């Protein structure tokens, strides 16, 4: 199964959990640092009320939330926000 299939399911659920208007990106953590861009593009279609952006997790203007499929994300800038059967949602550490 393609990870984009997992992202379709996770993004659908996350759309009701992540605050509207928040910046969000979508990744498979194992792909780091060359994340598959199709995952955030897929999430973009599933989360029209959010601002879905490319996965620049270490940039100064990093996304407020990260949707992660399959593996857990290990990044000092993010902490676990919600764990779901479809994947995990991480929130940026302020």
């Amino acid at each position, binding site marked *: 199964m*393609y990870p984009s299939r997992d992202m*379709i399911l996770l993004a659908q659920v996350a759309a009701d959990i992540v605050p509207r208007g928040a910046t969000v990106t979508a990744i498979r953590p194992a792909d780091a640092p060359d994340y598959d861009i*199709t995952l955030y*593009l897929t999430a*973009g*279609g599933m989360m*029209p009320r959010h*601002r879905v952006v490319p996965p620049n997790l270490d940039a100064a203007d990093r996304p407020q939330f990260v949707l992660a499929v399959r593996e857990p994300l290990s990044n000092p800038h993010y902490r676990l926000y919600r764990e779901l059967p479809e994947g995990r949602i991480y929130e940026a550490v302020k």
Partner: protein
Amino acid sequence: MSAFIAYLLLPLVGIGIWQLDAVKKLDLGGRIAIAGAFGAAIVVAVLAGLSIVSIGWSRSVVISIVVVITAISIYVARPLRTREKHPIDRGAMAALIVIAILIIYGLLDARLSCGDLHFFWGPKAVRFYRDGGVTLGFLADPNTVRMNPGYPLLLPLLYVWSETIARQFSWFSAVLSTALFLFGSVALVRSTSRDDRAAVLMAATLAYAFAIADAAGAGEPPLIFFETLAIVAITFIRDRRAQTVLAALGLACAVMTKIEGATFAIAVVLAVLIIRRTLKQTILIAAPAALLLGAWLAFVRMHDLSEYYRGAAMPIYFAAVTKTLLTLAKAASYELYGLPWIVPIVLIAIAPNRRNAALPLLIALLTFGAAFFFYIHLPDPTWWILSSAPRVLLTPLTALVIASAAAWRSADDLS
């Protein structure tokens, strides 16, 4: 459900094109398909026009305009009933029904879905609808550069039409619309060629190739539909005015559907010039497409949007020619030893009127050559070819199948 009904309403919106006598002579399937193409063009023009004059796409505004146009369309198309009837080959009809059931099953379980539907065609439509119009802010946003902001907008706007009716984007309706475009193409071939067996070949070839190419929901199904309209108009329709109007409609919609539509339009222009040697008609056929594409490219360039139309100006890698040919041949085999190509080629070879196939055959050769030409612009295009060629080659494949139908028709048996 209402999201899918939106697509079914398109022929009603465009029924005004039945005013053309040559269209009136076609059977109902062909007339509905042509009205559907015209309806799609109208709906997209309404949505684009509203964005151009900065009027938001409220449901009431869009539907009111479309209802008025539909009413005018029905009025000018009268009388809607015609006495034209064509004999039906029952065996061919049964085959078409079996193919339809198979492809609809494949579409409904989503296994034929194209990734591009989820990566940019769908997300673009979702965002446009949410924004209430095509906004430069979205297209010029650096975060959307991967969504091909320089791609023409016909398909996302068709999806927006569906969203407008349903108040939400339906991924399954987008996928299922593929069946409408596919059987619209088949109806066009059947109606204009009056050859039920050619329609079966078209249906079998496209359904199988769409499945192998995972084309559902992507730009190719509508692109092939509009390209089919253009090709059958100049191949099978006798009336010069209808030929010109329908070919122009097909080309205009094709160039506004996908970047490859521009290549197809150039191929059609060259083929008509070479085979028919009619400069005036060629200009009339190409003018709407050229104007629309020119306007879109001017917009893209004015706002410095990301686009790939200048791919032909990139350096050519002659060292990649052999590898490109081999990989292209592998993709073109459609996992069936190239049978989708072999069947129409054999049909042309043994046909009584091979000369009639010249025009669509030249279009097939030119578009196949164009695909090869673009692929040799990368030093190692293997991944690009394998991921896109099964869809890109649908255009020459469609033209080839239509050529095989033309080769079995006599010159005095035009629609």
